[in-house]
């Protein structure tokens, strides 16, 4: 009986492992096969590296190397927004945790509410606001909203209110440090773990965001990779038979779409694998929204 239960437990765990992992394994192997091989050969067979090179050439040639432009755009948006997040969120979390000033509670509560609210709920309102300000189509209409990251403030707030002894900061002040010097020389170096966490979360959420850039950008040359993928999808005849010439002119077929998807997630996937432990601490410590 006990043996049967253990077997059942293992069977359930393995079945879910297959469900979670099989699609990713398929995706990694897909670019090694031609479009015809994908249909005729076994789904988990390896084709050849030659096919990978071919798929990349077709993808790179698509619309005058626009794929690399999209990756570059994603990097620019995610990196610059994350830089602003770090500069604004860490000092804010610090002062909210250790300071006392009028409005502190209000800022904290608002931050918490906006953090827990799904990010997508704010996209249309932000679009309407930027539209009224005639900022639609500018890269700042992506970078500036990305730079508002209440989750980062909350992480810094939790860290400073639990992990930093106030006496240490007071000691610096007694030694004649001003408030900025105290923050810069004492509080900031102590917060390295939380800086890394905020950096990671902010970068990932910006890199993966589809809805906001899709809404506020007009020119396909400005698209980040997530929105670019949707353009590639529309150009793949297997998923969109209306594509002109059965896809021959643009050369985007299923292997090309697969390699594009794979390349689009590589930066996040690497950091993701390296930082599971830190991530879990962040998740359990403050909650996270998707």
């Amino acid at each position, binding site marked *: 009986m006990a043996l049967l239960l253990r077997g059942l437990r293992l069977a359930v765990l393995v079945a879910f492992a297959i469900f979670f992992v099989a699609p990713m394994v398929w995706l990694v192997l897909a670019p090694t096969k031609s479009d015809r091989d994908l249909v005729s050969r076994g789904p988990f067979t390896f084709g050849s590296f030659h096919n990978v090179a071919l798929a990349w050439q077709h993808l790179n040639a698509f619309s005058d190397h626009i794929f690399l432009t999209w990756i570059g755009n994603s990097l620019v948006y995610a990196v610059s927004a994350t830089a602003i997040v770090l500069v604004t969120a860490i000092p804010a979390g*610090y*002062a909210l945790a250790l300071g006392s000033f009028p409005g502190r509670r209000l800022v904290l509560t608002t931050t918490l509410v906006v953090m827990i*609210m799904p990010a997508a709920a704010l996209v*249309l*309102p932000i679009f*309407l606001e930027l539209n009224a300000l005639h900022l639609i189509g500018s890269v700042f209409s992506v970078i500036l909203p990305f730079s508002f990251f209440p989750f980062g403030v909350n992480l810094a707030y939790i860290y400073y209110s639990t992990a930093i002894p106030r006496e240490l900061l007071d000691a610096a002040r007694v030694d004649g440090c001003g408030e900025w010097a105290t923050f810069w020389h004492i509080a900031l170096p102590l917060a390295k773990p939380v800086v890394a966490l905020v950096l990671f979360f902010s970068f990932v959420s910006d890199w993966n965001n589809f809805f906001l850039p899709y809404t506020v950008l007009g020119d396909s040359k400005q698209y980040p990779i997530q929105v670019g993928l949707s353009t590639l999808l529309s150009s793949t005849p297997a998923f969109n*038979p209306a594509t002109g010439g059965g896809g021959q002119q643009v050369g985007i077929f299923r292997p090309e779409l697969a390699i594009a998807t794979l390349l689009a997630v590589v930066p996040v996937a690497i950091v993701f694998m390296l930082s599971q432990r830190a991530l879990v601490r962040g998740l359990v410590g403050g*909650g996270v929204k998707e």
Partner: protein
Amino acid sequence: MPSSTTDPGNSSPVRATRSRGLHGWRGFAFVVPYLALLILFGILPVLYALKLAFTKESGAWAGLQNFTHTATDYRFKPALVHVLLYTSVWLTLLILFVVTLALLLHGRASRASSTFRFLYYLPGALAGAASVLVWLFMLDPSVSPGSFLVHHVLRADLFVESIAPGKLPFIFAMIAFWTGAGGWVVVMYGALNTIPQELDDAARIDGAGPLTLALRVKLPLIRKWVAYMTILSFATGTQLFVEPQLVNQASLGMVPDTWSSNQLGYQLAFRYADFNSAAAISVDLLAIGLLGAVVIITRTGLFKADD
């Protein structure tokens, strides 16, 4: 804190620094840059959406007109039904399987347990458009490794049959489960680890088997995390946009571009330039998100705005 402030020898320097420190304007200055962003992209958009939602194009007061107008739009109810159906399927999957998997993994801590958690968690890296593309491949019977399942469970021989409108709430729920469930398994597992070992031992001595232990002792202790996951996922689920938007592109218009409520709001703004109606729908969705956040903060006790 070990260095207590009641130590009399310590009290005078502490008092001396009270007048300094992050009080008043000095503290506020640290918050100003973030506050500017909070106002510009957190508060003003909401206020502006509210203003648009309650006024006409001319700027005149419209009362609830935009809300009743959009609610009676022929696309409003189907979109709402789609989103609610999707959300309920997704929540059922999440609650049932995340809790089951976390309890199964926690029953016997081992290296295998951490490997399983890592494998479950990995698809989280493929959020957004990438996860949808992967699943479009999985649903294409001609290339899918699960073509057997696509044929027999979804009863589809062609890709377009896989994404028939009636099946979409279930498919989107599966995609969302695939990307997000692993993260939650890890969170629940972490929460289970905070249960004191003595409690575990006491229950065992009292003769509780692994099943009783899981259901009677462990489950009640992670209840607030399950509540948090449920409310947060409900609020997130109602905002569905990326998945139906991409499937619309891959279906030759068989799936309408107003499948979800957020898509309807988007179309009203973009295709019809009817910003007041779009604002009314976004206010509906904001209200759901806001309600979810407030319930989580006031009811689950997981977040404290102040200590």
